[in-house]
């Protein structure tokens, strides 16, 4: 939650910036969405369990914004610990995010607004190459 000041028609009103969650994305059993709140090791262990115990031949690791680095780290760690058995195929994309701007003081003449911005994302397929 952040307070922003909008400069419009000579009056600046305080607004609260509320970041909406990213657009709902497909979630298969072998999709892993990496975030920065969960412990790194836990997310890595989860990927390993999917590949080793879960019997998946490929998993897809997604990271958005700051979590891109962590997603790459997880994918590279998986590859390194597999002694070269795993391969990586990375794709990048742009994700549109929406922020809500709500006036802090409801009495003031301010309307709730939305603002869109873009953020980069990465999608790394971690797979055993002999799958096909």
């Amino acid at each position: 939650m952040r307070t922003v000041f909008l400069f419009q028609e000579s009056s600046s009103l305080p607004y609260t910036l509320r970041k909406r969650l990213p657009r709902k994305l497909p979630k298969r059993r072998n999709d892993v969405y990496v975030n920065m709140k969960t412990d790194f090791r836990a997310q890595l262990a989860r990927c390993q369990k999917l590949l080793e115990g879960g019997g998946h031949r490929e998993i897809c690791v997604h990271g958005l914004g700051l979590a891109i680095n962590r997603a790459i780290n997880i994918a590279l760690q998986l590859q390194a610990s597999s002694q070269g058995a795993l391969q990586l195929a990375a794709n990048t994309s742009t994700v549109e995010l929406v922020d809500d701007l709500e006036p802090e003081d409801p009495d003031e003449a301010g309307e709730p607004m939305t603002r869109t911005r873009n953020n980069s994302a990465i999608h790394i397929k971690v797979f055993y190459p002999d799958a096909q």
Partner: protein
Amino acid sequence: MCPVYQSQAYNNAGQPGGVNNVSRPVKPEPLPVPPPALKLGQEGFKKVCRTEEDSPCPFPGLSSGVLEMRVKEGSKIRNLMGFAMARMQGEKGVSGVNSSGGGLRQVVFTGSGRAVTKTITCAEIMKRKVGCLHQLTKLRYKVVKEVWESTEGGTSEMTVHRTVPSISILLSKDPLDPQEPGYQPPETLSALWEEREGTEPATASKRSLGPLQYTSFPDCKRVCLGEGASVLPPH
């Protein structure tokens, strides 16, 4: 051979990296063998040098006339994109974005560590602006050698090898091998999501934090300490 545009706002020596360089009343002398993942900046050490070890080009068989953009943490996207767009669009620049006239055919964006996000953003902006670009993305670890020097008058010096994730993105106006892992055809802005079928509800998976089989995390540092006199030639 490749024209390299290196945009770096400041020297590495003065770079405010991830390590706290503020001198604090800390332990008077550094430990002889510091444990891994040590907070170096708090032990009275200052980073004096940072070199990236040369790694082969991740795209074999690339022609020599490729523009390589090395994205750094402090690079400004407007500087990078201003340069790269002008080169890709040729001398005329402003006129005709998709004109098949002048301009380079391929560009590579590389970045490591905290510059990875910026690297992807640059590639995404270029894809959107130029259009019809084939993309090939490669990930790998890059070894960075850092030399740390004691700030407390001593001559002790440490060399740290750290591995940081790095990304290389090749954008090409000419078609690339679609069988190559990491290939992305042009205009997959939204198709990336729609091709995913079979959406299942998220299953709450229990976290089992078993012991991991490996110990080398990317944030860990391998530390070798030069005793007293500097082992390595000063840079």
